[in-house]
């Protein structure tokens, strides 16, 4: 038997096994409020592991310990979780990626990269509703049982295939099967999360708006591979392509009236994240995908708020990217930020440095002097003072 027909046969068997194991998993009914599984069951074991992970999360360096922010996010979570409010425990983690995750026991993480990209309380409510649905419908347990079933099928086929490259292919096929099932769960959670958020009075258009923004940000990435993620088709395509999710959410929202207080809750949301905006943007810059960061900043700036902070970090993105023309763009952004009362103090040092690079010593001097006046205790004062001395020495003033 040649290798190619053998591979084709193996893939066919895997696909059949994948569908079979998916069919094995029953649709989970909504869990009873307050129910905790017996520790002797597989679900009880999952909960025990989640309890341990939750305990560890409380001492992680990335845990955001701002009580006001945590209380706000938990408050929104409670509104959408409704009867599960007492069981869902939300932790904000300062990680610059768009992610939220729900453990089987109700321990939920919301990452700062998600909070930075969510523009309104309605968008946040949808995400929290999505995660709550994973909990309320026992998706983790279903995924766990499927994973075990697929691992067993994969193991059997690998033994039958005698290992080697064919065995690896079989293994990878079995792994991809696990992800295929979670795709169904994600679609399910989108629908359920939409229901929870709209029932709590949030804007039905918000979920699709959020996915559209993410799709556009992905398309703005500096990296071709990231830009292609949206439409990439492979056996490891773990989530529905964003276009599908947008279409499904648009369909759900069609005909529903918009939320009456959409603007008020958008303003409330921005106020909640405002104290963290600068730190989260600085974290985002450390991902070094400046195309995405710049797109994100433009989206945040569209509301006309926090422009001093946003223009400063736009300048920072251009300064760090260092492509042709970026120096001029950074300078323009810094100058725009300097007209705003909420510009960070560091702006004036960066503006001075950039004016020096632009051969504008008088403007640099003004910026440096403003920095020294504002940053009384800054550790880098001596550097700025040396720059000023150099300017005054060379310009003769």
């Amino acid at each position, binding site marked *: 038997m040649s290798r190619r027909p053998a591979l084709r046969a193996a893939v066919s068997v895997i696909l059949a096994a994948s569908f079979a194991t998916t069919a094995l998993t029953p649709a989970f009914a909504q869990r009873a409020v307050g129910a905790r599984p017996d520790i002797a069951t597989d679900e009880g074991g999952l909960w025990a592991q989640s309890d341990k992970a939750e305990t560890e999360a409380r*001492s992680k360096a990335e845990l955001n310990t701002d009580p006001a922010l945590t209380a706000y996010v938990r408050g929104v979570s409670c509104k959408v979780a409704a009867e599960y409010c007492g069981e869902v425990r939300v932790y904000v983690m300062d990680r610059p990626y768009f992610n939220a995750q729900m453990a089987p026991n109700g321990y939920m993480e919301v990452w700062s990269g998600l909070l930075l990209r969510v523009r309104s309380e309605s968008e946040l409510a949808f995400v929290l509703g999505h995660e709550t649905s994973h909990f309320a419908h026992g998706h983790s347990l279903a995924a766990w049982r499927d994973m075990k079933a697929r691992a067993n099928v994969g193991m059997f086929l690998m033994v039958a295939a005698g290992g080697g490259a064919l065995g690896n292919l079989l293994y990878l096929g079995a792994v991809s099967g696990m992800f295929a099932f979670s795709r169904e769960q994600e679609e399910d959670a989108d629908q359920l999360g939409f229901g929870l958020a709209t029932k709590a009075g949030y804007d039905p258009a918000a979920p699709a708006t959020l996915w559209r923004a993410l799709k556009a940000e992905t398309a703005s990435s500096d990296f071709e591979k990231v830009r292609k993620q949206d439409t990439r088709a492979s056996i490891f395509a773990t989530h529905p392509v964003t276009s599908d999710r947008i279409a499904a959410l648009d369909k759900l929202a069609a005909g529903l009236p918009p939320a009456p207080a959409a603007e008020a809750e958008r303003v409330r949301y921005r106020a909640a994240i405002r104290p963290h905006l600068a730190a989260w943007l600085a974290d985002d810059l*450390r991902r070094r995908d400046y195309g995405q960061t710049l797109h994100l900043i433009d989206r945040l700036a569209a509301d006309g708020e926090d422009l001093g902070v946003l223009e400063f970090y736009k300048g920072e993105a251009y300064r760090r990217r260092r492509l042709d023309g970026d120096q001029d763009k950074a300078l323009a952004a810094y100058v725009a930020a300097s007209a705003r009362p909420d510009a960070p103090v560091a702006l004036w040092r960066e503006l001075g440095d950039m004016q020096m690079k632009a051969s504008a010593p008088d403007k640099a001097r003004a910026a440096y002097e403003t920095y020294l006046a504002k940053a009384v205790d800054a550790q880098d004062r001596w*550097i700025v003072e040396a720059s000023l001395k150099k300017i005054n020495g060379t310009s003769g003033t």
Partner: protein
Amino acid sequence: MIARHLRTLAAVAALLTLTACVSIKAVPAGPYASGGHQVTLGKTWADFSPFSGAPKTVKLLTIDGPLLNRLYIIDGLKSGEFIVKPARKEQPTPTWRPGMTPVEQVEFVTDSVSALGYQRVETDELRPIKMGASDGLRVNIAAKTAGGLDIAGVAQLTEVGDRLYVILYLAPAEHYFGATQGEVEAVMNSARVAG
């Protein structure tokens, strides 16, 4: 995708084979060089570089193990070079560029510390130093491990002839940093560029 995973498996297998051939070597007190970056060690260190996954320009020394103290002695970085190797093209790590301002140089080092996996990296007491005839910087570092352990550190940076020479020391703030701080300061004071 499958090919990529197979390549990864092959790389891991190759790495396991290679690591069987290398060992941690003692570095005795006395002169030590990472390329053209020369220092004098006051006590015996261990060279952990073969296991660090770092570029060849980056030497990693330790006394009690890399989780308890790590001293990076980095040969002059050229334009576009980094302290931390990127795992993937889509996850680039900070690169050095000649002409960076002193504040950008510090940013390069602190971002590199973040790229090593440390969290909440902050600096304090930025101060000028001399390395031979060249002006440089020294700055204290505070960070946390992912698990929440407090880390203290100090970095020394000197740009000589369009190259950046870095010494970076990181250790748990409790006991380990203080226990080796004097030795590390003496190592930093001894640093010179060959030539």
